[in-house]
């Protein structure tokens, strides 16, 4: 038994993405409409009535399909609301793709939205069921949970804390630098290494510049059967592989687990690479959008996704391998770090960058001849998480 995958069975023919940020004047509905308008506007042969079904991803900005059907007035079409922590947007996309691949629908839309800045609090809010009050997930914030990677990584790989700090700072510097060339990013100014290093601490050694932006935003994608994609656009994006792993949380209880890897990511990547026929991700991919929720996460992901040898991620980061002009650009759009992280929208935002890059629409950050991209989206925390990996490409059969 293995996931068979839907390599080259579906294509993305339109996408939209709002500017991410503190959108004080925009509601959840406004954000959905903004992303939808861009998407539909760029796909002249499809209008709202042609869309057969919708998948809506949001962590907490609405419940049920009604959140979308009301916003768009969708004429009694099926709308499925999905939630899978920070991988929610990817999950909406994955299930929408399966709706088309199964032959159930001809045209579907995946929408992701999050309105985080209405709560008045810092960071993400949780809505947990009533509990006994003992779970560390209830008390410990996300930056604290991911900051656990830092001392553990240093201890395991013999990395001096100053070297690790420099690598973490490089991740933040790089993603802010990339984001400065992205008009839709929440933070559009380069940030100096000194500013990053001296920022007020949030958890462990993580300062505010080691954390992703808390923002509002929405993104969406139109998906059709691959053989019909060219009816709608000259430059479709084909789905090569989709995988999702929900961990058993064994790692959180297992003394063998050392907090220097996400086993769920390793497995999701292996599955997606198998579906897409990727043997050597470091050379076969043109770019990757990864879940840089906190700077040490991106370092560990370089290893878990197979871009670096185990224990070398920090060194490869510092060596510029993953910079915009490096051997494998990571988060050329600025990532969660500077594009911002409206939870339900982030997975689709990652795909949006691949979409723009393949079409040559990435402006100042356009890469040279990109043909294959990976997106990676993580939800939860080290020890117990969900991990999504997709591989998408510009051409059929490549």
């Amino acid at each position, binding site marked *: 038994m293995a996931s068979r995958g839907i390599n080259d069975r579906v294509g993305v023919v339109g996408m939209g993405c709002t500017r991410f940020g503190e959108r004080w004047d925009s509601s959840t509905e406004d954000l959905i409409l903004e992303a939808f308008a861009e998407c539909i506007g760029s796909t002249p042969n499809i209008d709202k009535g042609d869309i057969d079904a919708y998948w809506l991803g949001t962590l907490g900005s609405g419940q049920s399909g009604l959140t979308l059907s009301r916003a768009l007035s969708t004429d009694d079409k099926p709308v499925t609301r999905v939630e899978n922590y920070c991988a929610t947007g990817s999950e909406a996309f994955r299930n929408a793709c399966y709706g088309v691949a199964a032959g159930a629908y001809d045209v579907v839309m995946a929408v992701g939205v999050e309105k985080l800045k209405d*709560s*008045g*609090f*810092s*960071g993400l*809010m949780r809505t*947990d069921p*009533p*509990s*006994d*009050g*003992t*779970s*560390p997930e*209830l*008390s*410990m*914030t996300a*930056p*604290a*949970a991911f*900051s*656990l*990677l830092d*001392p*553990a990584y240093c*201890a395991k790989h013999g990395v001096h804390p100053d070297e690790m700090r420099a690598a973490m700072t490089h991740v933040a510097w790089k993603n802010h630098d990339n984001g400065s060339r992205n008009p839709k990013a929440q933070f559009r100014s380069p940030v100096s290494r000194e500013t990053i290093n001296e920022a007020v*601490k*949030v*958890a*462990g050694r993580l300062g505010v510049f080691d954390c992703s932006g808390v923002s509002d935003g929405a993104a969406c994608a139109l998906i059709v059967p691959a053989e019909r994609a060219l009816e709608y656009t000259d430059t479709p994006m084909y789905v090569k592989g989709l995988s999702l792993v929900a961990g*058993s*949380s*064994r790692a*959180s*209880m*297992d*003394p063998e*687990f*050392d*907090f220097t890897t996400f086993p769920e990511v390793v497995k999701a990547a292996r599955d997606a690479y198998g579906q897409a026929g990727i043997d050597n991700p470091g050379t076969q991919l043109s770019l990757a959008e990864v879940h840089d929720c906190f700077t040490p996460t991106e370092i560990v992901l370089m290893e878990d996704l197979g871009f670096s040898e185990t224990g070398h991620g920090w060194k490869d980061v510092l060596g510029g391998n993953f910079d915009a002009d490096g051997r494998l650009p990571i988060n050329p759009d600025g990532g969660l770090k500077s594009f911002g992280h409206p939870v339900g929208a982030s997975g689709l935002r990652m795909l949006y960058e691949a979409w723009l890059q393949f079409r040559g629409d990435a402006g100042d950050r356009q890469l040279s001849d990109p043909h294959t991209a990976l997106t990676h989206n993580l939800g939860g925390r080290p*020890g117990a998480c969900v991990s999504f990996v997709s591989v998408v490409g510009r051409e059929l059969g490549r």
Partner: protein
Amino acid sequence: MTASLIAYATYLPRYRLAGGDVGLRRGDRVVASYDEDSTTMAVAAAARALEGHPLPASVYFATSSPAYADKTNATGIHAALGLPYASFATDLCGTGRSGFAAWRAAAATGGLALTADVRVGRPGSADERLGGDGAAALLFGDGPAIADVLATTSHTSEFLDRWRSPRSITGEQWEERFGADRYAALIRTAVDRTLDETGLAEVDHVVVACSNSAIVKRVGTLVKALKSTRTSPVGFSGVADAGITLASVLDVADPDETILVVSAFDGCDTLLLRTTAQLPLARQSTAVSLQRAEGMVVPHLTYLSWHGLVEFEPPRRPEPDRPAAPPAARAEEWKFGFAGTRCRQCGFVHLPPVRVCRSCGTVDEMDAAPVATLHGTIVTHTVDYLAYSPSPPMIQAVLDVDGGGRCTIEVTDAEPERLRVGARVAFTFRRLFTAGGVHNYFWKSHLLDTGSENDGKPRDQ
């Protein structure tokens, strides 16, 4: 009274107010941390006293600072100690007299008498300066006695010396000299009667507990003893005062010595004990004097915030939800008893308990794996400046428990800079936060070298 004293222990919290902050010319003031209350301190003292002894069938818990009204606090202690379902646990809420009542009950039926108090005074008050927080546990039963009960006496008198509204955390006092006069007479009468009834001319040690500080000052002239006359080395600790002071004598007394405990609260009760040859073999593992010596200074303002006497700006995070009753009841063995499960098929330890083994997938083949008394090692750690905490920042660590098991849990009583991978920890029952009037009790870890809890050193036997 029928049962003998077979074990004793005290728990003194680790935090101290600097003497200069509260008007003490020398020394400091012992204070409970924000995550401690009379219930948690009683659990700590009880766990030490019960080490190596059969579990008691009765628990009598006395305090003037109960965490709950309209709910028995002793049941939380009972659960945290993992005592059998078919046993008795009750509160006696009031003054030091309630503490004496706990002793009398435990001595009559056998059982565990727990006394604990958090004594809060208004900033600048004598209660703030001269009080002390802590807990004492006396275990009575049929085992090898460390002291036998020779006699008790009681006198009761209604007069106004100390009082406190049930709604207030700080108390009041009449002109001290009035109460001192009354207590002096009561104490003389009680001591004379005890000596008369037992035919003793003098006792070896006298312990005096009294809420009137003028009595405490002149205790040496008030009651004579051959070897020592003592008041609390901690400061006045309310209901726990007599127990902590008695423990400080039991820490050093020789076999076959008499100890007269004088407990003067709205009257005067006495308890006369004679130590046995077992005492030197069964003293508590860490003497009161050592527990008193160790400490970490807490800034005065921070301390005041713990008791709501000043209010700090909260973090921009939502307050946590109150723990829900049904899930808390279902998880009693985990939440209160800190017991996980071990798979019978593969031995994998689950903290918290689960039904399907995370390692081999076997369903419902689990044995209890209690970890409360075990030690652990820090795997990785962090300081969470953003998390909601009654006293930020929150420290969290991932721990490997000796003998198997991994969990992520708060670290308490620690300066963040002392955390390191590989550091050794033990566990302590604490109150994580209070929401909707519900105290969220659970276990935390503390660094072992802080001495704030049982440090794992063997008892001298």
